[in-house]
């Protein structure tokens, strides 16, 4: 049957295409599921970073050893009434400069994370630098994040609009918020 000769190969090609398509979708679904699962397991949620960028982070990370690695990131938490914190997300500081938008006129709790891991000793650890920050509207905040030879340093400089110089802000612990709200 001529018709069936034509139909059969056509069905076979379509079937192969469908199978390939299903295969691709399955692979994509697997990776999306795995990525979601991993993100969920490690508790790392990307910070939406949709607000006007008022935090300009310059980061420099050097572990000082061939056998170790240091990963730098900043966790951003919203600070609510009674100083309760709500994790908003994490920005990985993998590039030398990163711009972040933090809600102005509201307290945020910033946690700069230095996570080191040693391949040689199969050892890992995390150290953090934490501060409260309440960005003023239209102000800019330059953040210098440095990790070198096992020493780290975080400095935040606040600059008013249309100015080139600013002042360095001292870190403010979350306990300061809790003690001030407790006094009220």
């Amino acid at each position, binding site marked *: 049957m001529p018709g069936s000769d034509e139909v059969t190969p056509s069905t076979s090609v379509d079937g192969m295409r469908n199978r390939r398509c299903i295969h691709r979708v399955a692979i994509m679904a697997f990776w999306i599921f795995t990525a979601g699962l991993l993100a969920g397991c490690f508790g790392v949620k990307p910070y939406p970073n949709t607000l006007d960028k008022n935090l300009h982070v310059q980061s420099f990370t050097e572990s000082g050893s061939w056998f170790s690695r240091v990963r730098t990131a900043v966790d951003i938490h919203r600070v609510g009434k009674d100083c309760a914190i709500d994790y908003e997300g994490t920005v990985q500081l993998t590039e030398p400069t990163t711009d972040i938008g933090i809600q102005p006129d509201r307290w945020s709790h910033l946690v700069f994370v230095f996570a080191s891991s040693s391949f040689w000793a*199969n*050892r890992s*650890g995390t*150290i953090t*630098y934490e501060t409260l920050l309440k960005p003023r509207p239209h102000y800019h905040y330059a953040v210098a994040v440095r990790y070198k030879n096992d*020493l780290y340093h975080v400095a935040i400089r606040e600059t008013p609009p249309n100015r080139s110089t600013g002042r360095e802000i001292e870190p403010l612990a979350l306990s300061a918020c809790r003690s001030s709200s407790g006094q009220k």
Partner: protein
Amino acid sequence: MNRYPLLMTALSILTLSGCVSHPQTAEEFRKVVPGAFSGKVETFEVDRPFSQVAGTFQKMGPNCLSKTIKTTSQTNMSYQVIVTTYKPTVLVTGKKAELHVQFHHEQGVIAVSKEPVGGYYLLVADAQPVTASKTRIDLYRPSMGHGVLIQAVKNWATGENVGCPDLTK
């Protein structure tokens, strides 16, 4: 090779060391460190006014050392998690600035002797003015390990490359 005697000796040393009390105050720590196998006293002068050194101790001590650190290490045979809380104390008078660093293992290490309030003493740094622009530092510190902490405290004294030590190292 029979390892039993070796094990017993090691356990005996550990038990005996548990009987020897650790310094309970910073002053006791200063007295014990010069004669201790694992302690060292280092004295040096820095070209910096006393007030600046004291100011750096006051700023960096609490910011850098009020930390609880979790480290994990893993081999084929073991998995260890150690949680350590560090406690800095900075005392400043007109003629002396003291930095005390204590540590307490929250998890992963058993305390074998009486622990002072705030944890075992790890390091004490005393700064005293020599001249208007020079300050003398007496550092009572471990002779092995904790190199990052020691370097950070020295940097706080000299004012060069001031940063916080990665206490996971």
